[in-house]
């Protein structure tokens, strides 16, 4: 039995499933079976299944990063097929927007909105997000992505953006040590830098310095001729550490927590470098500890590697990890549902870290599809996942959703297409088949909404599951000229459509489908009808509607994914 299969066996024990049965029972059914057991044990009544409208909005936000268009929502609501939910899941996962959304999500997850000390030395956003988008479009397994990101020094011309993880942290060894452990393994070893962490038995100073030894020889290198940033590496430098408590000393070679040490190979003196480091040249050693890290860490047997991915994908779909905070897995902060996390981890290992497949399984689960309406008016504990949580839209989700609600996305892509038909009619068909035209289109759209990102982005290093609305956001939404520019009555926005609808009921339906992705209730239709009284022209209608539109965009129902 090799290490990998031994590891799987252990996971299947944890998940309470046998290996053969594990393959027969789809992951989403395992999740629901285990959750149902946990709810029964804790005497928790879960919420009912969400309405189609709630489900569809949530699914679009989670898998494509934006609310649906009114036409899409209408089509989904009117679809009478019993398997329309799985169909919708597969359809959204197949769209270019899936890869673009995941690129934005993993940009934040990996770079955490950090910038290098000299901001202009950052990796070009198009190169980094391009790398991520290509990876998600190809559904690259996570271990491959992790390996590429950790191995990158910026010199690989096929994926120069992959070096961002290092550059965003100035290739500073202590920051890298902490973030390699946090981002890839879900553990925060910060306190263990100076001593064995007194809070947690399982954070050892030796573990911290074991990872540190992989990256301690790295440094930031700016090539002013190429105008690009790289990671340089020395061939020498040992790591020793002293506890501030016990003054006990340790020396370590690179080592992953719980793993063996990797001693440097013996190299002939004077032949340690491909390029020796100097002021004008980036050090490239013959033997690279960074490459060793990239080789060794993304494996099923590295404690935390698979679990961290499973936990982060769960958090992406639920707004909260099974282990929470996401980077604080330790003995005293166990997962709320250990068997569920173990089942996901096992599935990921068996399916070679198939991120898209895993998200699909989670989306198929009843647990994911629960309503956000409280069961019997009672709020179950947040870590029970027994009701769909209210989570503030991320700055990225908010930006695209505002543009979508106002009809600005449709207009933009229609215009792009018309332009293309005019200028290069022969290319239209091939271009449309290739998802890249969308990617380029979104880059242009970003300019319209960059103020939203600036106003809503949390501090660097904060993960998206911790986003909370604050008064600055409210002031922005109420008074900023930037927001008013986005939601004012203007040609090429939803107001064109709304103004043209003279029947108040039809108008109310389109309005609510556009903004809140559901049909209006009777009272809401009445309110719209009231506002439309004594308006005659499309322009008058649009002007009368504008304050209501603004008010609905300020509502909690819009602001939260629920």
């Amino acid at each position, binding site marked *: 039995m090799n290490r990998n299969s031994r590891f799987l066996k252990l996971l299947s024990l944890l998940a309470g499933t046998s290996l053969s049965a594990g393959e027969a029972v789809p992951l989403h059914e395992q999740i629901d079976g285990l959750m149902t057991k946990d709810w029964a044990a804790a005497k928790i009544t879960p919420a009912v299944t969400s309405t189609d409208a709630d489900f569809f909005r949530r699914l679009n936000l989670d898998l494509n990063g934006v609310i649906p268009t009114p036409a899409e929502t209408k089509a989904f609501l009117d679809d009478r097929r019993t398997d329309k939910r799985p169909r919708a899941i597969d359809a959204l996962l197949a769209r270019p927007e899936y890869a673009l959304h995941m690129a934005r999500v993993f940009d934040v997850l990996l770079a955490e909105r950090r910038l290098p000390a000299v901001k202009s030395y950052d990796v070009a956003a198009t190169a980094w997000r391009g790398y991520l988008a290509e990876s998600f479009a190809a559904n690259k397994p996570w271990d491959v992505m992790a390996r590429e990101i950790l191995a990158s020094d910026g010199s690989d011309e096929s994926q120069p953006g992959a070096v961002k993880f290092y550059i965003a942290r100035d290739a500073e060894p202590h920051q890298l040590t902490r973030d390699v452990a946090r981002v890839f393994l879900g553990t925060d070893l*910060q*306190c263990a*830098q*100076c001593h064995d962490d*007194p*809070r947690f038995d399982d954070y050892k100073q030796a573990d911290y310095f074991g990872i540190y030894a992989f990256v301690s020889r790295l440094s930031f290198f700016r090539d002013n001729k190429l105008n690009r940033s790289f990671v340089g590496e020395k061939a020498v430098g040992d790591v020793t550490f002293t506890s*501030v408590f016990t003054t006990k000393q340790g020396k370590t070679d690179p080592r992953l927590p719980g793993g063996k040490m990797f001693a440097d190979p013996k190299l002939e003196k004077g032949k340690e470098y491909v390029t020796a480091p100097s002021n004008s040249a980036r050090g490239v050693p013959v033997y690279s500890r960074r490459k060793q890290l990239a080789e060794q860490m993304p494996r099923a047997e590295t404690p935390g590697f698979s679990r961290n991915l499973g936990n982060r994908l769960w958090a992406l779909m639920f707004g909260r990890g099974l282990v929470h*905070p996401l980077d*604080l897995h330790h003995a005293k902060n166990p997962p709320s549902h250990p068997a569920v996390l173990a089942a996901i981890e096992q599935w990921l290992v068996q399916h070679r870290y198939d991120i898209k497949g895993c998200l699909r399984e989670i989306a198929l689960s009843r647990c994911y599809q629960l309503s*956000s*309406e*409280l069961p019997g008016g009672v*709020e*179950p*504990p*947040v870590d029970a996942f027994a*009701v769909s*949580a*209210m989570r*503030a839209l991320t700055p990225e989700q908010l930006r695209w959703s505002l543009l979508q609600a106002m009809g600005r996305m449709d207009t933009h892509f229609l215009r792009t297409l018309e332009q293309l038909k005019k200028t290069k009619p022969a290319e239209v068909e091939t271009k449309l088949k290739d998802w890249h035209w969308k990617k380029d289109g979104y880059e242009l759209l970003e300019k319209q909404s960059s103020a939203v990102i600036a106003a809503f982005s949390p*501090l*660097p*290093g904060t993960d998206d599951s911790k986003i*909370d*609305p*604050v*008064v*600055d*956001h*409210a*002031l*922005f939404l*109420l*008074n*900023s*000229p930037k927001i*008013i520019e986005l939601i004012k009555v203007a040609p090429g926005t939803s107001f064109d459509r709304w103004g043209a609808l003279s029947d108040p009921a039809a108008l109310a339906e389109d309005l609510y489908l556009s903004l809140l992705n559901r049909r209006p*209730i009777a*009272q809401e239709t009445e*309110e719209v009808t009231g*506002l439309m009284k004594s308006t005659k022209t499309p322009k008058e209608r649009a002007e009368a509607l*504008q*304050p*209501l539109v*603004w*008010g*609905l965009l*300020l*509502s*909690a*129902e819009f*602001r*939260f994914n*629920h």
Partner: protein
Amino acid sequence: MQPNLTRRQAIARTLGLAGAAAMAPPALAASPHRKQLLVLFLSGGASQLETWDPKPGTKFGGPFRAINTSLDGVRIGELLPRTAKIMHKLAVVRSVNSNLPDHEKGHYAIQAGRLAPGYPVLGSAVAKLLEQPGDVLPGYITLRRDGPKAYTDTGDAGFLGAKYEGVRVINGLPPENLIVPAGINAAALQTRDAARRAADERFLRTHAKAPINGYGTTFDQARALMQRREIFDLKAESPKDIERYGRHDFGQNCMLARRLLEAGVPCVRVVHFDWDAHQDNFYWHQMRCAEFDRTFVTLLDDLEQRGMLEHTLVVVTGEMGRTPQINNFGGRDHWGRAWSVAMAGCGIKQGVVHGMTNDLGTEVKEDEVGIGDLFHTYLTALGIDSSADYHLNGQTNPVADPAARPIKAVLA
């Protein structure tokens, strides 16, 4: 034995009004002012050896002298000459052992009073615990200059949620977007706000209340700030006062803090940056202490003269102290094992020095105090029961670390 007199009673007695005061206890004569909190945060970690706990002439003492203070037998660093003259109004704890020589963790743990993550920091906690019905101004405002160190803002409200998050005022500029843009008529704004409220009321009927109400509160706070934006306007202060507080970010922020407290904001924090002197510690502390000393004393004087000090707790702390050992660059490094914190005002005994470090300042020798004890002390000084619990979202969490205790010696 002479009973403790409140300041008002003492004044009444001097004026020969003891009889009247006895008939009508101050608490009934005038409703007591609500209690307030001001935290002066020395970010980066001030050296206890150059401030509250000097060890001149010893191995690690550094080049500066210790000077006499207004408190008999108590000496502090010569870089704080003005503070030395008001030592009889302060309580200083010289025996803090936080054991956290780290900016990020220290910022959180010192302010949250514990290591466990997810709890509110002092300003957010007190904003919640002293909240009164009808409050609309933000409960907690935090002032700093624009700085690159993101960890200054770590933590904040924790599980209390966005409502108690510190509103950030950076570089003395009021929050952005305080003014309704021109060209939008009042009727439209009314329709907009009514539509938002109606939508939220409907949504509330079936959904979790905390996030919806928390979000709604940010709009109430926004309106309150818009209506009272003049409280951020330092131009209303006289040039003389601007000069008295000092023309630097800490001085101006302290003056703004006083304005905000006067306007009724319950908790204010001012961050004073750049105490992290890994190199040239003594040069840096000359600069930092000069700013701090003058501004701090001006601020305390003003609070006292305006009758605010008796209901305002002032806390002077950083996230850690600095090592006794002086490194090869003439710096002192991160250190949490034996350092000092100062307090004044509401609920604090005047003229107390609590705890002691050893002769070299390397260890606490007497009356060791932990971060949880300090947190209990601050709450107790503000009249808050620090053994109480929060009951929120179906969870019970202690207000302060149950393993720690208030420091009786510094409480009035």
